């Protein structure tokens, strides 16, 4: 064996060790993912149902359990993807379109009739609202309502997020959910979308 070839030996071993270490790190990151639970525990569901709304029905406090779970419905891609599926399963698009509104109000413009807090959105879906929003209390479980609310909130988000639901199979006709679609509308134009709302939400 020539000296040149035998000189490569330690380098090879070093490279192999580097690749192996990178693979180990990748596997470890893969194992760190959020454990998936297809059905929420009944006590957790019951606690999630106990939102405390203001008497006006606008805004309020989420239940303690929501913070104990680390606010999953606004922050995990899985829950937001489930919300996106629920959005199409329960035909939200028949009134709200792909977020641009229609018979129902728009989400994309970030103009929340009952405030931008997730509790208001949960209450709107669960209990319904005047002028046509039906209650979904009997058709969806409370954790599904939370998932859908997290997704709906992201449609009209003011700030960009690091998590996003799965992309559309169809053509995308509006900014992606994690790109703060509403902020775009507020920043732009000589004539704002909602002049009464001021320069920013």
């Amino acid at each position, binding site marked *: 064996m020539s000296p040149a070839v035998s000189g490569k030996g330690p380098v090879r071993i070093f490279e192999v060790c580097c690749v192996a270490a990178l693979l180990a790190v990748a596997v470890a990151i893969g194992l760190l993912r959020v454990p998936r639970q297809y059905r929420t525990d009944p006590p957790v569901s019951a606690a999630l149902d106990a939102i405390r709304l203001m008497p006006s029905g606008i805004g309020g406090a989420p239940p303690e359990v929501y913070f104990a779970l680390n606010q999953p419905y606004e922050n995990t891609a899985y829950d937001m993807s489930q919300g996106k*599926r*629920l959005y199409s*399963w329960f035909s939200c698009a028949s009134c709200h379109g792909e977020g641009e509104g229609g018979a129902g109000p728009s989400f994309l413009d970030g103009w929340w009739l009952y405030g931008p807090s997730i509790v208001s959105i949960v209450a709107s879906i669960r209990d319904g609202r005047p002028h046509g929003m039906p209650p979904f209390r009997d058709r*969806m*479980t409370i954790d599904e309502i939370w998932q859908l609310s997290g997704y709906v909130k992201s449609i009209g988000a003011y700030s960009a997020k690091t998590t996003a639901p799965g992309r559309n199979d169809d053509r995308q006709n509006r900014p992606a959910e994690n790109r703060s679609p509403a902020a775009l509308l507020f920043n732009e134009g000589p004539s704002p979308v909602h002049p009464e709302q001021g320069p920013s939400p």
Partner: protein
Amino acid sequence: MRAPLILLPLPVLLSGCGGSQSALDAQGYSGALLRDLIVLIVVVCLVVWIGVMIMLAWSLTRRRDGQAGDSRGSEQRLGVWVSGAVAATVLIIGGLTILSFQTTRSLDRAGDPDLTIRVRAQQWWWQFVYEDADAGSFQTANEIHIPVGKEVRVRLESTDVIHSFWVPSLGGKQDLVPGRENLLTLRAERPGVYRGQCAEFCGLQHSHMAFFVIAEEEESYRQWAATQRQPGAQTGEAEASAGKAVFMARRCAACHTIRGTGATGTTGPDLTHVGSRRTIAAGLMDNTRGSLAAWIADPQTLKPGNNMPLVPLTGDELRQLSAYMESLK
């Protein structure tokens, strides 16, 4: 004594070749053609392989006979052997190619089919539409009945991703591509229940995307089709009629159709005669009242990722709904 002991595991190994889903146990016209082709190719290749192995063993055990100087004669013999082997290879591969081409061509029989079924594959179930302008069209899901000995034209479509329609016992596979229509002709030669399976990876629940082809005599096929054309059964049972009310109130009708009622949704499987089917959820479970209830109670745990949402029901409502589903024979 030793030979039988070696043959002992053979029945166990060969049992995999039979059953309701096997290309080697062909029960259809095109399936039999394909099986003959496979068997022929395997036999020819086996003969070639045995010949090569014998030659190899012979050349390894043969001793060089010392006269290294006399190379002219051995070179000539080598030339004869090599050209003979090349000629044989060309003949065999050419012959197999022509045979394979002819067989695949004869699978695709044009002409006037006796029955046309439109297949729409979706993640992860099969929608079958029997198109009959005279007697009336009807839909089933994950289960088709066909008359024995008749040409059945299957028109293959997909609504989301690429799937593949494969009933190994009856014939070859054909892809279902979104935006285009592929054709396949099935002809079952013997009555029986043949399992089909999606043969193109199509997502999380690809393995739970099965269907059944039930080939039966003309008479019983006609009876089955006549039953399927009728609207959903009106039941006298109190529990089932309460279940019907639950079905309408809980918005199951937004996705599912039950002909003869107000339920006209089109995104989910047609449930007009769901009780008559062998399995539910594309071959996931046998169709019993218990498995129907389990499916309605929590579809996402049984088949994660499928498009049926969990709808909250009380225990009584669940029991009534599954009784209603079971009564839709």
